[in-house]
């Protein structure tokens, strides 16, 4: 009986994990994508559509997509609407906080054009029009599955 702990410990310390790591990983976010959302001046419609992604209807976590609370944890920055003048420094600061590699997804408003155009770095996608949650969902999954190459 006394030998069990020894067996367990030896098993514990001699255990080897095996991973199949491809020699050149094409998409670093293939397994999980952490998203930070910043509302840079959108209308409520877009906001509601976006946050309905968190509901069980879409169950976005099954694709390994998670929402995080700080850009320091994020792989993808989602900017809702073109940044207004006051939101521009905050968006820049958020991009400054993000670890590399990272991507930026810009979702623009249909209803009003308020923003100014800025040269966003690492822009991996750009959505425009009267969007519904499903389209955003599709885009995010696309990025998670292989669209985001940095």
């Amino acid at each position, binding site marked *: 009986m006394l030998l069990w702990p020894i067996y367990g410990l030896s098993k514990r310390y001699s255990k080897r994990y095996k991973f199949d790591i491809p020699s050149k990983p094409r998409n670093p976010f293939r397994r999980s994508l952490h998203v930070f959302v*910043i509302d840079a001046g959108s209308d409520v419609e877009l906001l509601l559509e976006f946050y309905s992604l968190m509901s069980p209807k879409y169950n976005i976590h099954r694709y390994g997509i998670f929402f995080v609370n*700080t*850009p*320091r944890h994020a792989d993808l920055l989602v900017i809702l609407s073109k940044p207004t003048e006051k939101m521009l*420094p*905050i*968006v820049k*600061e*958020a991009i*400054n*906080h993000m670890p590399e590699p990272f991507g930026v997804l810009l979702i623009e408003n249909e209803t009003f054009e308020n923003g100014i155009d800025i040269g966003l770095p690492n822009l991996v996608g750009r959505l425009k029009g009267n969007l519904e949650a499903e389209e955003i969902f599709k885009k995010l999954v696309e990025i998670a599955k292989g669209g985001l190459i940095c």
Partner: protein
Amino acid sequence: MLAFVLAIVFFLLGMVFSFNRTISYSFGVLGAISAVVLGFEGYKDGFYYQWDIYNNFSLGINIDKVSSFFIIIAYTCFALIAFYSIDFGKLFKKSMAFLMNFLMLSMLIVFCAADFISFLIAFKLVTIILFFSILERPNTHKEGYIFVAFSEASYALLFVGFAVVIASNGLFLFKAGYNNALFAVFTFLGFVVKMDGVPTHVWVPLVYPKAPSNIAAILSVPLTLIGAYGVFRVLALSNNYSYVLGILAIIIGSISAFWGALQAARETHLKTLPAYSTIENNGMILTAVGLSALAKYSHLTVLSKFSYLTALIIIIAHSLSKTTMFLTIGHAKEMLGRDSIDDVRGILKHISKPAGIGLLISGLSFSAVPPLVGFAAEWMLLESLFQSYKFSDFLLKFIITFAGILIALAMGLSSFSMKKLVGFSDLGELNFELKRFKDFTMKWAENILSFLIITSGVLSFLIIKYLGYEEFLDGLLGVPKPTLVVSSRPIFGVISPFMFFIVVGFFLISLLIILKAKNKNVKTTIPWVGGLALKENEVYNTRGYSFIVEYVLRGIYRTKELRTSVETYDISNAIYDFLVRFFKRLSAIVSNIIMNGYLHYYILYIIAIFVIALIVFKL
């Protein structure tokens, strides 16, 4: 001797020219430099002059090794403080220049006096001048009186001690107090009060923040050096009582060191923290001197010499580092006009480079980082306390071991508090509006002091050699001959700040070059608060840093957690609070009984005094 006369002449000229601050302070610098030269001369040859006036009453000047060592250290600091004040003094009244020169003059007499009378007069002058210097800042009367009260306590003890000697053999010279028990005890306690030994330290954290920074530096270094000087003198004079005095010194010293460090750990005020650090360092000096006396009593000559040397090195370390700290803090404080460590941030980046570097180096020296002089000092103190096993007396062994524990704790806590001071104020990032003024001499005084701290650490073996303790220098394991400091014979422990500086300095520089070449893309960001700039109350502050200590030791600090803040308290103030309450109540009772407003009582007093007067004058 010429240097002595020159110093006095320069100080007098400085006093005369006090209508022009620049000239006055410049004379002060020259006088202080002459005093340093006098110290070096005196250390080499010594000087004694006695002036017999009437019967046994004689005045004298005595410059031996002890006093010249103290003169060198105190006046090096004085010279730099006066140099600093050329620009800094313009923020204050002209009287400060006069007071500073007068102070240097009277302190020179304190260190040189061979007799009680001139010592007491000069000592009194120092107190009075410092009282007026503290008043240079408005609304500081209360602090000034507190300072005077504790100085008077010290003065009274010294007076009693000296009076005992004069009554017993009618002589007025210091050496007349040789092996006199009452003289030893009273003057020892008097000088310990001057060294801010616990529990007479309560004035320090009150007065230092209120005084101007150059005066705070003087209060911290040359003033407490008087106390240290006196303790050295008394212990040298009373060989027969070195057992009692040594034990007393070790107990008071180690408790002071521990208490000072403990209070510094909770402090968040810019000048109160160094004030408590002063108490800690003076405690360390006292411990080292006491250990030296005890080792001499137990016939451990090598240990006695080593701990004596330790006390000298701690004095050097403390004087240089603390002067730098107060001067740099004063520089930052006057530019920002703020008092708390949290409000004075970014000294290195925004205020001035010399001030930032000076504060950093002095903080590192107090945290005992090699190869600075504080490292050598604290290592030597711990090393001499480790040798408590050599004592055969069990009581001594016990006391010294416990003192070692307290001192080690004090060192740890002091590096904790220094990290707080330097990390927040010096290396911080917050920027307020600056009030720029001309600070050329301030910067250079800070630069010279930083340089002195580093060189006196790296070349500490040269200092030890100059002081005449060559037996504690050796070469071992590839370290060349005189650069290794040895703590005992046969060899017990060794350090070599010089080799450390060369080897680690080389590695550090090469590492820095490699890192600089490699890390080109370094990102710096502020904490993420929704992308907005941080507000004042959102920054991690000193209270947050020291709250862990405040909470764990809430019994000692009497920590009170209020809604938005935390309050702590130095419980040694409780003694004085109790005394104040007691005397207030006592006076109320006495006045109720005696001065109660009834007329017949007063008539009774008049009649009683009349009767007493009749009896007295009849006799």
